[in-house]
C-alpha cells in the first residue's frame, strides 16, 4: 500500500512490526483452522497415502539416511517387493526426520507421529509467508498480507494440508511458492545468488513432490515468453542459467528422478529454453560487435540451421528411445477421456477425475471471481514478473479443470490474484484524499502517475456510477470520491471477506477434516459416536496373525494395512504394477475354484474386504468392484468380462437378480457371507445399494452363501472390515468344495439322527442361545 503521507514517522517505523505481527497471526490462523480433525477426533494420520509416508518416516527415523535410500521393502507387492528408497520422493520424510532429530537434540520429547500430523499445518503457515513474499513482489505489502491471509484459509489448499494429511503436497505447496518467489527475485535483480537459492528450493521441491515438473515447465515458459516479447535481458540470462544449471544437477541427485531431467519429454522444454537463452545471449553479444547487415544474414542462417538440427535431434532421440516418450498420465492431462479408455487404474482414482464446476467455487469461494480481476490488474502494468502470474494463472486454470487434485496448484495463484485485485480496490477506496474541486485535473495527474491506478479508477468509476444510479450527475460529493460510494464498496467487501472466512471454516470443518480412517456418526441424543472398524480390524491383524502373514486386499487399503496392521500386502496405493493389481482383481472377481490357485501361488494367508452394506458405508469394495473387474479384464479379456456382472437389462445388482457370475465371485461371497443371518426373519437389506439380499430364512429357494476355500477369520463391529483366512490344501487332496460338502453332509446327517430336522444355520443359532 502506498503509505498515506500524513502518517507520522513513528507510526511508519511501527509498520514492519505490525506486518510481522499480522503475518504471525495469519500463520496462527492457518494452523488453527487445520486442527479440526485433531480436536474432533485425535492426532491421527489420515486417509491412504499418508500412511505410507508415515511408515517410511518411521523407517527413516529408525535407520540412517543411506539405508533409507537403499530400502528394499519386502513387505509390499509380495512376492515382488518394492525398491522403496528409489521410488519415492524423500523430501517429506527427511523433513520430518530432521525436525524429529532437531527436537531430540533439544531433548524435547515429541512423538514422531505428532510431528507427522502437525507438519502440514505448520508448513501452511510458511506457505502464507511465502505467498506474502511472492505477492509483495507483484504489488506491495498490503496485497502480500491479503494473499497470505487468503492462502492461509483457502479450502483448495486446506483440503491437502489439514493436520494428519501427511502427504507430499503438504510441504510441496510451500516449496512451490518459495521457489516462485525466489525466481521472481532472481529475475528482478539478475542475481546469481538468488538464482542459486531458487535452484536450492527447486531441489527441495523435486525431493518432495512429483509435481515439481510444473516448476520445470513454467519457469522456462516464462523465460520463453519474455524472450519472444523482446524482453530478453542479462538479468533473465543470469537468473535462468544459474537456476537451470544448478537446479537440474541438484534434482538429479534424487534417486527417483535420476537422469529424467535430460531424458524425459517433460523436461525437454527447460533444456530447450536454456539452449535458446545461450543463443540469444550470444546473438546479443555478437550484435554488439558485428555490423547489422552481416548480422542479419548470420541470424537467419544460424536460426534456420539450429531449428532444423534441434527438431531432428529431439525426434531422433525420442524415436531411438533415449528420450522417454510421454507417459499415460501426461496424455490424460490433455485428453480427459484418455485414461478411461487406456488406463483404467488411473481413471479409477477419484482425484484424477475432471473437476466439476461447483468445486471451483467450493474451494476458493469469492476468490474465483476476483482471480480474473487480479489478472486484469497485473495486465495493466505488465512488468516481467506480472507475466509470470498470467502464465501461471492460465496453466493452472487449465490443469485444475482437467484433474480435481490439481485444484491445489491453482489455489495459490487464485489467492495471489485475488489479493492483488482486492488490495487495488481497497487502495482506491481507503484513500482519504478528497479532490473536492478540480476533480478532473487531479484525476488526470493520477492517471499519469500510474497506469495501473488509471485502469482501476475508471473501472471503479463505472462501478460506482452503477451504484449511485442516475443521481450521480454533477454533484461533486456523489461519485467515486463520495463517502457513500466508499462506504458501500468497502462495506460490501468487508461482508464478502466475512463470508469468505465463514465459508472456509465451514468447508474445512465439514468436508476436509475427516481422517477417513475413523468415521463419525451422530447418536440419537446428538452426541458423536465413533465408528472405528478399520483400526479394530487392522489391530486384530497386527496382534493376532503371524508376523509374516500375507494379506490380500484391493490396492486402496495396501498402505493402511502396511501402516496399521504391519503385515505384508500384495498390492498397494503405489500402483506401479498393473498386472499385479489385475491379478488381485481377477482373484476377487472369479469363482472360488479359479481364485484359490491364484491365492495359493501368492502365498495369501488372509483376504481383507471392505463391506458397507450393514452400516451404509458407500466407499466399500462392492462399489469399487467394477474397477477390479475392468482392470482384470484389461489383462485377461477371455476370463473376466465386465458384461457378465451386469444383468440382462444392464443393471448392476447384488440382490436375487444378480447374475450368476456376480453371485459366484469371491468378492460377492465374502461381502455377503452370513449377512442375511443378521436380519433373522426380516428382509436383509444392503443399506448402500438398497437392495434385498437373498435370505435363506425368508426364502427357501435361496441357498445360503457357502465358502469352501476360505473361512471367516474376523469381522469388525459394524461389518465394515471382513477378514477371511485362506484354507490350507485339503489333507486328503480333495477339492475344497467337495471337502466342505462332505463335512456339512456328515454334520447334517448326524444332526438329523439326534434331533428334528434343523438346518445348519438354525443349529448354530440354537447353540448360541444354549449357553
Amino acid at each position, binding site marked *: 500500500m502506498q503509505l498515506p503521507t500524513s502518517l507520522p514517522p513513528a507510526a511508519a517505523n511501527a509498520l514492519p512490526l505490525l506486518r510481522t505481527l499480522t503475518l504471525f497471526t495469519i500463520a496462527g490462523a492457518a494452523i488453527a483452522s487445520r486442527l479440526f480433525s485433531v480436536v474432533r477426533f*485425535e492426532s491421527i494420520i489420515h486417509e491412504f497415502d499418508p500412511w505410507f509416508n508415515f511408515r517410511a518416516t518411521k523407517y527413516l527415523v529408525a535407520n540412517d539416511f543411506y539405508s533409507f535410500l537403499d530400502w528394499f521393502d519386502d513387505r509390499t507387492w509380495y512376492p515382488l517387493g518394492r525398491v522403496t528408497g528409489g521410488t519415492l520422493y524423500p523430501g517429506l520424510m527427511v523433513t520430518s526426520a530432521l525436525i524429529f532429530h532437531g527436537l531430540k537434540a533439544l531433548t524435547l520429547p515429541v512423538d514422531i507421529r505428532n510431528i507427522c500430523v502437525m507438519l502440514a499445518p505448520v508448513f501452511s503457515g510458511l506457505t502464507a509467508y511465502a505467498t506474502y513474499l511472492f505477492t509483495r513482489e507483484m504489488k506491495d505489502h498490503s496485497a502480500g498480507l491479503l494473499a497470505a491471509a487468503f492462502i492461509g484459509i483457502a479450502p483448495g489448499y486446506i483440503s491437502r494440508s489439514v493436520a494428519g494429511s501427511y502427504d507430499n503436497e503438504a510441504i510441496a505447496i510451500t516449496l512451490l511458492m518459495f521457489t516462485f518467489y525466489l525466481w521472481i527475485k532472481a529475475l528482478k535483480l539478475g542475481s546469481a545468488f538468488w538464482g542459486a537459492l531458487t535452484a536450492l528450493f527447486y531441489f527441495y521441491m523435486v525431493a518432495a513432490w512429483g509435481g515439481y515438473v510444473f516448476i520445470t515447465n513454467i519457469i522456462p515458459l516464462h523465460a520463453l515468453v519474455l524472450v519472444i516479447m523482446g524482453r530478453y535481458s542479462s538479468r533473465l540470462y543470469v537468473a535462468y542459467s544459474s537456476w537451470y544449471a544448478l537446479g537440474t544437477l541438484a534434482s538429479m541427485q534424487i534417486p527417483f528422478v535420476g537422469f529424467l531431467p535430460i531424458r524425459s519429454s517433460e523436461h525437454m522444454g527447460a533444456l530447450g529454453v536454456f539452449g535458446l537463452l545461450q543463443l540469444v545471449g550470444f546473438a546479443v553479444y555478437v550484435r554488439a560487435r558485428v555490423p547489422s547487415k552481416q548480422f542479419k544474414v548470420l541470424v537467419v542462417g544460424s536460426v534456420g540451421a539450429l531449428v532444423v538440427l534441434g527438431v531432428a535431434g529431439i525426434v531422433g532421440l525420442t524415436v531411438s528411445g533415449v528420450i522417454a516418450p510421454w507417459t499415460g498420465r501426461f496424455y490424460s492431462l490433455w485428453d480427459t477421456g484418455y485414461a478411461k479408455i487406456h488406463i483404467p487404474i488411473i481413471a479409477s482414482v477419484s482425484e484424477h477425475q475432471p473437476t466439476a464446476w461447483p468445486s471451483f467455487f467450493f474451494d476458493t469461494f469469492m476468490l474465483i471471481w476476483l482471480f480474473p480481476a487480479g489478472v486484469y490488474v497485473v495486465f495493466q502494468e505488465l512488468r516481467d514478473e506480472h507475466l509470470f502470474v498470467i502464465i501461471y494463472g492460465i496453466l493452472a486454470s487449465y490443469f485444475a479443470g482437467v484433474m480435481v487434485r490439481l485444484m491445489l496448484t491453482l489455489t495459490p495463484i487464485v489467492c495471489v490474484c485475488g489479493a492483488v485485485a482486492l488490495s487495488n480496490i481497497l487502495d482506491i477506496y481507503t484513500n482519504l484524499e478528497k479532490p473536492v474541486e478540480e476533480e478532473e485535473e487531479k484525476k488526470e495527474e493520477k492517471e499519469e502517475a500510474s497506469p495501473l491506478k488509471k485502469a482501476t479508477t475508471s473501472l471503479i468509476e463505472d462501478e460506482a456510477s452503477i451504484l449511485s444510479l442516475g443521481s450521480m450527475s454533477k454533484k461533486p460529493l456523489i461519485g467515486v470520491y463520495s463517502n457513500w460510494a466508499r462506504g458501500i464498496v468497502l462495506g460490501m467487501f468487508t461482508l464478502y471477506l466475512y463470508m469468505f472466512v465463514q465459508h472456509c471454516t465451514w468447508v474445512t470443518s465439514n468436508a476436509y477434516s475427516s481422517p477417513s480412517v475413523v468415521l463419525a456418526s451422530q447418536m440419537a441424543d446428538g452426541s458423536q459416536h465413533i465408528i472405528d472398524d478399520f483400526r479394530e480390524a487392522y489391530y486384530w491383524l497386527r496382534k493376532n496373525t503371524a508376523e509374516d502373514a500375507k494379506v490380500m486386499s484391493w490396492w486402496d487399503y495396501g498402505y493402511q494395512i502396511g501402516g*496399521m496392521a504391519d503385515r505384508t500386502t500384495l498390492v498397494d496405493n503405489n500402483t506401479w504394477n498393473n498386472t499385479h493389481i489385475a491379478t488381485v482383481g481377477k482373484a476377487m472377481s472369479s469363482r472360488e475354484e479359479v481364485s484359490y490357485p491364484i491365492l495359493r501361488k501368492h502365498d495369501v494367508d488372509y483376504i481383507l474386504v471392505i463391506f458397507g452394506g450393514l452400516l451404509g458405508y458407500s466407499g466399500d469394495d462392492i462399489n469399487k468392484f467394477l474397477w477390479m473387474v475392468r482392470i482384470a479384464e484389461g489383462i485377461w479379456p477371455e476370463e473376466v468380462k465386465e458384461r457378465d456382472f451386469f444383468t440382462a437389462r444392464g443393471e448392476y445388482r447384488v440382490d436375487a437378480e444378480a447374475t450368476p457370475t456376480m453371485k459366484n465371485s469371491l468378492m460377492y461371497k465374502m461381502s455377503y457371507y452370513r449377512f442375511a443371518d443378521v436380519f433373522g426373519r426380516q428382509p436383509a437389506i444392503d443399506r448402500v445399494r438398497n437392495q434385498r439380499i437373498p435370505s435363506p430364512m425368508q426364502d427357501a429357494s435361496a441357498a445360503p452363501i457357502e465358502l469352501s476355500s476360505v473361512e*471367516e477369520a474376523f469381522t469388525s463391529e459394524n*461389518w465394515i472390515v471382513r477378514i477371511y483366512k485362506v484354507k490350507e490344501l485339503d489333507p486328503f487332496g480333495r477339492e475344497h468344495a467337495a471337502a466342505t460338502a462332505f463335512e456339512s453332509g456328515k454334520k447334517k446327517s448326524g444332526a438329523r439322527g439326534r434331533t428334528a430336522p434343523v438346518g445348519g444355520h438354525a443349529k448354530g443359532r440354537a447353540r448360541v442361545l444354549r449357553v
Partner: protein
Amino acid sequence: MRFSIVASALLAYAATVLSAPSPSDFKVVNMLRTVDLMKAYVRDSSSFILENTSSEPKSSFYLAVNSSYFDDDETTPKLAMYEVKLKADDASTTPLEFEIAPEVNEDGMRLVEVALKTPLEVGSSQTIQLVTAVVRELSPIPKKIKQSEPQNLMWEGTKVSYMPYPIVKQRTKVKTADRPPNAYSKHIDDPLVEGTTLTYGPYNDVEPYAYDPILVKYEYNIPVIEVSKLERELWVSHTGGNLATEERYWLKNAGAELKDNFSRIRWQASTMARERTPALRSASVHLRPGVRDVYFTDEIGNVSTSNFRDDPRSPIMEIRPRYPIFGGWNYSFTLGWNHDLGRSLRSLVDSEGETVYVLRVPLIEGLMNVYYNEVEVSVVLPEAAEILSVESTYTDVTEERSLLFSHLDAVGRTVVKLKAKNMIDEQKRSELYVTYTLPSNGQYAKPMLVATALITVFFAVIVLGRIDISIGKTKTA
C-alpha cells in the same frame, strides 16, 4: 542385601545336611487350607498351629514347595507369591524370613526353612499362616473350544499339605467362581460340596511327607488374562505440581483357544444375551481418587471405546479393547492419567535445614484379576534431584538408575527403574517410597542454559546481519 551365590549355596547345603528336618521335631495340630480358584491364578493359603514336640527349643521349621513352580520357565518361575507369617493372639501378623533349598527330593518338592523370630519352647505352639500364589498353573480343558462353549480349567493339587511333620488334623477347601466344579477327584462322600466350595477332609493323623494328588475341573467363564509385560512410568514434576502415570500393557488371554474362527454374528448374539464369556470384552481399572486426564490408547491411536466414571472416592476407567480378546489372542495398550503431586509427596526439613521429599506411590495399579510376567516401574524425578533412598514394600525387585535428558534439561533427571517378575494383581497394595532432595544449585542450570543459548542466537543474528556478502556494489532497484 543378599549373600553371594557361593555363600548361600554353602549355607543351604549346610542347612540341609546338618539340620535336615526331623519329623519328630514338630507336629501340625490343626491345618486349614483354602485353595482359591476364583482368579486367573491359584491362591493357596493355609493356617496351622505348629507345636514343638522335640526336646529342645527350636528356632526354625520346614515347609515344602513344589519344584515344578521353579523350573517351568527359565526366566519367570510360576511361584508369584510366597509369604509365611506368624500370627499372634491379637490376630496381628509378622512376616517370617525363609530360605528355599535348591535340592529336589523324590516327590519333586523343595524344602523351605523358615526362621522363627523367637525360638519356640518345648511343648508350646504358634499359629503360622502361609500364602502362596502360583501363576500359569491352571490349564484349559479342552485346549480349544467353540466360540459359544464354556471354558473349563483344570487344577492339579494335593489333598493334604505336603509337610515334613505329622498333621493331626487337616481340612482342604477348594473354592471356585460362581459354579460348582463339574469334575473332581472323589472318594465315597469325600469331598463335601457346598455351593461353589469343595471341602476335602477332615483327615486325621496324616503321616509326614504324605502326597495325595487331586484334580479339579471347573467352569471358568472369565478371561484368564496374562500380562506378559507391564511398563509403568511415573513422572514427578514439581513445577507443574503433577504426577503423571503411564502404563503400557502387553497382554494375552491364556484361556482356551477358539476351535473355529471368530464369528461376529455369534458374538453379537452373545453380547445381546449378556452371556458370560471367556473372551475379554471390557475391563474396569480402579484408579486412585483425584485422577485427571485419563487416556486409553494403543499402537495405532486412541481407542474410542472407553468410559471414565469419575466417582470421587473410587474413579473407574472402563476400558474396552478394540476387539474381544479370545483365548490365545493378544492385545497391547497404553493407559495414562495425571494426579496432583501433593497427594503423593510429603516434604520435611531435616536436621541440616534441607528439604527432603518423600514420594509414596503404589508399585502397581491397574487391572484386576490378572498376573504379570514382567513388571518395570520407572520413576522419573525432577531435574537435578538427588536420591537418598528407594524402598519398596514388595522386596523382590532389582533396581537400576539412569539419567534422562528431557524438556531442555541441563543436568538431567534421575530415573529409578525397578524390575520385578511374576507379580499378581493382589500386590497392588505394595508401595514404593522414593526419598530425595532438590539441591538449589541444580535448579538454575536450565534457565541459565536456555538464556545463554538464546543470547548466543541473537548475537549471531546481529553479527551475521551486518556482514556484506554481495559481489560488487549492491544496486537498489
